[in-house]
């Protein structure tokens, strides 16, 4: 049984009249949305703590450890501090877009929660166009950043606004194409259907490890790279590029408005990880998840946090790319590869072959994409090996300068 059905039933049991069913449903969904939205806010506190701890461990530091056990309440303290800060609106700002932007950015992210299946029966709304819905929500974030960049009336913020449009629009295309791969394979855009499809039956027992990443590693890789860009994470964090644009589009924001952007960013990277988990890593599927329903949410959150930590790991290790390099990578590498992948997948799925051969061909096509991406990255690497030697051979230069001729002078 679904959680909403259970809640509705509970209300009728408590004596709600049958003719007010619209009110009962409304109350039910309000309760659900209220719990989810607040859970997300608490989750954000946890995410920020994880980021700080992971990054500090990578950087050979300890990280927050003063406020609360293991510094868990550091973020709470920071949030309180931000709440108590002066709320500044620049005099020359475009008020409407300036004030609307932080709200919009958080709303866009929170709305994604509605379609994330945390467990077999734990989903806000099992939309049959959930994937499309998520893609549409992604554009809300772009709008918010652009409004903030424009509305602040600051040149740095404006530059960041330009970058937002360029970057997020460019990377949305490979991301959507990569998301299309599991959708095509499962034949549904419903997140719950995609999760359910990733079971693996050994006789009557569901092992829960029929994850699509084993079949579509290429699509997963493209999705992950594009998601890094969409989440504004290193190496694609040019939007805020603190060393260039100081803070990017939220440079003029202070206090809680700034906190909302901050919140939206962390939740966004978490949800992009969650979508990756649903589409490629089996969602709530896992060994014995079908037998013990409680395991479902645990598996789901564990996988999502793992993806999140990987994102932070990348953040601690990679430099940032430049805007032109980033655009080149999107349009010259990711988009053609994703297009080729989807085309190949469609052709393979229509081939009148036994199903296992279909799957094998699909895997081969995906592996080819993985190899291609790694090769493109690796060609830099090889060039690097040659270049790194060049400074260590100064002998090549001796002779361009002539030795001392006289001992006069200094």
């Amino acid at each position, binding site marked *: 049984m679904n959680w909403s059905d259970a809640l509705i039933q509970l209300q009728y049991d408590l004596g709600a009249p049958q003719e007010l069913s619209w009110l009962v449903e409304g109350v039910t969904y309000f309760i659900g949305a209220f719990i989810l939205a607040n859970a997300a806010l608490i989750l954000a506190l946890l995410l920020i703590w994880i980021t700080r701890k992971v990054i500090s461990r990578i950087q050979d530091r300890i990280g927050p450890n003063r406020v609360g056990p293991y510094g868990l309440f550091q973020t709470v303290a920071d949030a309180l501090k931000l709440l108590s800060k002066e709320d500044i609106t620049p005099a020359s700002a475009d008020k409407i877009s300036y004030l609307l932007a932080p709200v919009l950015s958080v709303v866009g992210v929170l709305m994604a929660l509605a379609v994330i299946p945390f467990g077999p029966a734990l989903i806000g709304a099992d939309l049959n166009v959930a994937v499309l819905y998520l893609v549409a929500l992604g554009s809300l974030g772009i709008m918010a950043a652009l409004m903030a960049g424009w509305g602040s009336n600051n*040149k740095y913020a404006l530059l960041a606004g*330009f970058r937002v449009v360029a970057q997020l629009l460019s990377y949305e295309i490979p991301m959507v194409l990569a998301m299309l791969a599991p959708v095509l394979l499962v034949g549904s855009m419903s997140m719950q259907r995609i999760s359910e499809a990733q079971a693996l039956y050994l006789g009557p027992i569901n092992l829960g490890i029929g994850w699509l990443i084993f079949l579509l590693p290429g699509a997963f890789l493209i999705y992950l790279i594009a998601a890094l860009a969409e989440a504004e994470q290193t190496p694609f964090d040019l939007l805020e*590029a603190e*060393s260039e644009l100081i803070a990017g589009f939220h440079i003029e924001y202070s206090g809680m408005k700034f906190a909302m952007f901050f919140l939206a960013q962390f939740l966004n990277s978490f949800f992009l990880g969650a979508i990756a988990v649903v589409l490629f890593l089996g969602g709530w599927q896992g060994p014995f998840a079908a037998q013990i329903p409680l395991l479902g949410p645990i598996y789901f959150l564990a996988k999502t946090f793992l993806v999140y930590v990987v994102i932070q790991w990348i953040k601690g290790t990679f*430099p940032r790319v430049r805007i032109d*390099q980033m655009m080149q990578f999107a349009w010259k590498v990711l988009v053609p590869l994703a297009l080729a992948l989807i085309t190949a997948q469609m052709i393979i799925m229509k081939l009148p072959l036994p199903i296992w051969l279909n799957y094998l061909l699909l895997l081969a096509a995906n592996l080819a994409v993985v190899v291609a991406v790694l090769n493109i990255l690796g060609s830099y*690497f090889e060039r690097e090996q040659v270049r790194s030697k060049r400074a260590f051979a100064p002998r090549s230069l001796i002779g361009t*300068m002539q030795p001392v001729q006289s001992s006069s002078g200094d």
Partner: protein
Amino acid sequence: MLDVAPRVRKYEILPSLQPPGIPAVAPLPTGESEDTRRIAERFGEAVLAAGLHHGQQVVYIKPEQLVALAEFAKTDPHLRYETLIDVSAVDRSELPVSDHRFHTVYQLRSYSRKQHLMIVCPLEDGDEPTAPSLTGVYSGANWPEREVWDLMGIRFAGHPDPRRILMPENWPNHPLQKQVPLGGEEVPFTLTWEDPEFESLGKQILEAKSAPPKLPPGMSLENMIINLGPHHPSTHGVLRLVVELDGETVVNVDADLGYLHSGFEKTGENKRYKDFVYYTDRMDYLTAMSNNLGYCLAVEKLLGVEIPPRAQVLRVIMAELQRIASHLFWLSTHVLDVSGTGMSLLMYATRERERILDLFEMVCGARLTVGYMRIGGVSRDIPPAFLPHLEEFLKIMPEQIDDYERMLTHGPLWSERLIGIGKITREEALDMGLTGPMLRGSGVDWDLRRDAPYSGYENYDFKVPVANEGDCYARYLVRMEEMRQSLRIIRQAVDNLPDGPYRAEDRKITPPPRAELDISMEALIHHFKLMTEGFHVPPGMAYQGIESSKGELGFFIYSDGSARPYRLHVRGPSFNNLYAISKMSKGHMLSDVITNIGSIDIVLGEVDR
């Protein structure tokens, strides 16, 4: 505005002390060298004097022939002075001379012949002292000449961009002229609050009017003009870059300096020689040891004092440790600029730098502004625990450098961001007067430690890394290799550390040990004389350049025989290297401007001085 009479320090007129020395003019050069003879033959009457002075080749030339001389020195196949290192000037109004109030002084360097030439140009007196500009011959003269105009008030005829550079455009005077008071207010030497001197305490003696900002020459408002700094995380201090942007492409860059100008040169001219050592720490605060060394060497050149071998080796160890520390800090901030705060190398490099700072703390009690070196040696001997800790550092450091390289040199994104960015060709580097890794990254095989050895560097075996490409990546590789070579030098220095005194035994220059004061009257007198009056330096002028981590750090001292330098000029490598930022950034993206700033490796304390 300027109604304040020059102030006279009170301790100078205490009756118990001798007068602070009779001003004298630096003696003219004597003898001759191949180069000075050649120049004297070529220019005949225009050469007022030529020869050797403290082992330096000096030519006095009339202003009419200055540009011709520079051109001759640059193009003549037997001279080949490719680069102009420094421009400075002396205001001689307090010297016992009546004519030629201003002298401009040029330092020329021939990398191919390993020669140094000092050109002195006595200017005609007048309302507006004017010297011909050398920017047509060496484009690197641009900023130094602007500095001389700004601080000394000498106009340069034919200068393409005659704006002030360090002081505000509307500053009422030229601070290095001798009649300008030291500035600020004197601290009253009294303990009663009734003293009338307290009334002026904290009052600004010069009225500073605000001036509306001007658009730098060559920029148009059609494009977006953006102010990078003075408060910007990546400008390494308070540097302001006015950047003209077309989209994200940089059309024009103009650097606005002086936010951290603290008048070190003026201060130095009002301090005794031994007291200025601590000020040098604050110029390039990341290479305090090198600054100490450069200043001490310049004064020692004038004094002609012999430095004991142990002190020399200690100086080398400290200077090389400082180079590693500075390069580590450069690396961490460069990585921070290019990649953002998430990048872990920032912390790794800082961790190793911390060890060096601990070593410094061990020898002198300070970590950043060390003030360790003294004229005549170093301030104290190393403690017994120093060498074991240094050994440990020498053991772990090579692995750490390998680690950094594994993270950056062999990583795809790092090279992608650096290769081809901020390209400077060999000719441009020579023309702009760049030094240090900026020069070696552009394919000029030059290192003062090897090619004009000081402090016993000729005794060490090390290689000078050179890269030909001239881009940010080349400079990155050069600096990484320099750290390894510095470790080699330290290794050899530690192995051959001689015993003996750690500073010169000349009681006229270095104070006697504390124990001696209790038993020797003479030691007490020496100590008293040194601590009150300081030592006198014979009249003369000297330029001493050393290879600091950022390039050639030069000190030019003009002594009038008193206990204070008559003119002290500092040639900051960051200042001259930063001149290249405009050339490096044009046509690249905004992100590359940040990369270039990091690659030049500036410290604003030294740029603005």
